């Protein structure tokens, strides 16, 4: 193991994820479970919000989402010896989390054949509640809310891989390489999924009034209609 920094040592600024993970590994190797858990708690705190957000994309607002996050953190802790120094902890952990979420989505699908899902009993999806009041006019607020809802609804209608790629890259801001590490797919495959997803999203949203004629569309500013294509 390379460059392990013991806890409490003189460090300028907070240690990075990789250093923290390495320190946790070191404590675990020494049999010092309490110190390992304490440090790992710091890692959990750092990534908990984003992890919960990703779980909510997949599992909607339910106990499943929280359980998927908990499972992923516990699994990451127990498999920390597999984490290689130099890699991104966030990417490594997100892969565990995405797999955990997908397992639950599949299990939910199996259950849904026999039972009525909680979501169908009136519990709203977080993807249906995407609205942030930044503009004051009711019209602008309504439009923004509507756009968010429609976008996430369209994303949720994409095939599983396309959805994963769009959420991780376009919403969570991961690069193609990071998405590749998170999902285990090749970068070229990710590109294909991403562009297929974007094309499909455009098709799904093209007739939607909330997305009609944005300012960046060709010729909108000048004449209000598109120029003819050759």
């Amino acid at each position, binding site marked *: 193991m390379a460059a392990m920094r013991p806890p409490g040592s003189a460090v300028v600024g907070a240690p990075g994820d990789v250093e923290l993970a390495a320190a946790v590994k070191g404590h675990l190797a020494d049999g010092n479970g309490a110190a390992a*858990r304490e440090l790992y*708690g710091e890692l959990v705190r750092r990534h908990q919000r984003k992890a919960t*957000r990703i779980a909510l994309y997949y599992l909607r607002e339910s106990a499943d989402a929280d359980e998927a996050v908990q499972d992923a953190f516990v699994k990451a802790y127990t498999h920390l010896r597999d984490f290689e120094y130099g890699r991104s902890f966030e990417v490594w952990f997100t892969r565990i989390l995405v797999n955990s979420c997908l397992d639950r989505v599949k299990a939910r699908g199996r259950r849904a054949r026999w039972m009525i899902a909680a979501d169908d009993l009136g519990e709203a999806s977080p*993807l249906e509640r*995407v609205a*942030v009041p930044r503009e004051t006019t009711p019209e602008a607020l309504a439009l923004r809310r509507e756009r968010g809802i429609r976008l996430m609804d369209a994303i949720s209608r994409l095939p599983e891989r396309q959805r994963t790629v769009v959420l991780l890259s376009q919403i969570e801001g991961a690069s193609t390489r990071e998405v590749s590490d998170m999902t285990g797919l090749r970068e070229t495959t990710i590109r294909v999924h991403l562009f297929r997803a974007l094309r499909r999203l455009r098709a799904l949203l093209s007739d939607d009034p909330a997305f009609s004629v944005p*300012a*960046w569309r060709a010729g909108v500013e000048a004449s209000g209609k598109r120029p*003819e294509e050759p």
Partner: protein
Amino acid sequence: MVRFATRWFGGWGQPHLSDESLVELHTLQRTGEHALAARYQRHVRQCESCMGRLEALREDCAELRRDVLAGVDALITPARLDRQFDIIARRLEGHAGRVLPFPVVTHRPAPAPPLRRWIATAAACGLLIGVGAGRWIGPIDAGSRTAWRPSTTSPTKAGPRLQHETDEQMLDEIDYALTRSRTKEFRALDELTPRINDARARARR
């Protein structure tokens, strides 16, 4: 509906990026694929109109993304995160994440009514007597059993052959089904299964 994607529009002298290309360029930039974005980037640097459109698209997407993130983040309250953190900490310490109260009341079997007990005892005795008598009498002679068979039919001649043919037919059908493209997944399983002809040949040896 979205039309077929075109890369450029406008005249030969003054081409512009199509909407599809603009979205592609923005996506490539966001995902860190600058090498792939270079071909559009060169044009955008020289074209004020496309530059303006790209900026507008970037702002539009950023705003949409902020809305989506903030909307989901609003569901993740500090209390929720604390609760989640506590459960993770408990699980890491080796405790169960959630403590469920276990029912304390012990289950006692209800006393069976005396009549039902008598019936059960009688049935058990009958069974024992039947088994004992069967052993004492011994196996029935095979000749006496064949006397009960109807003599008009001759299943011994036609039966095995017919069955043999139908078995072969069935195996042929299975082989045919396995060669079809839709059942490729079963080939591995099929290869693991011993062939009936091989088994027969081995038995003859």
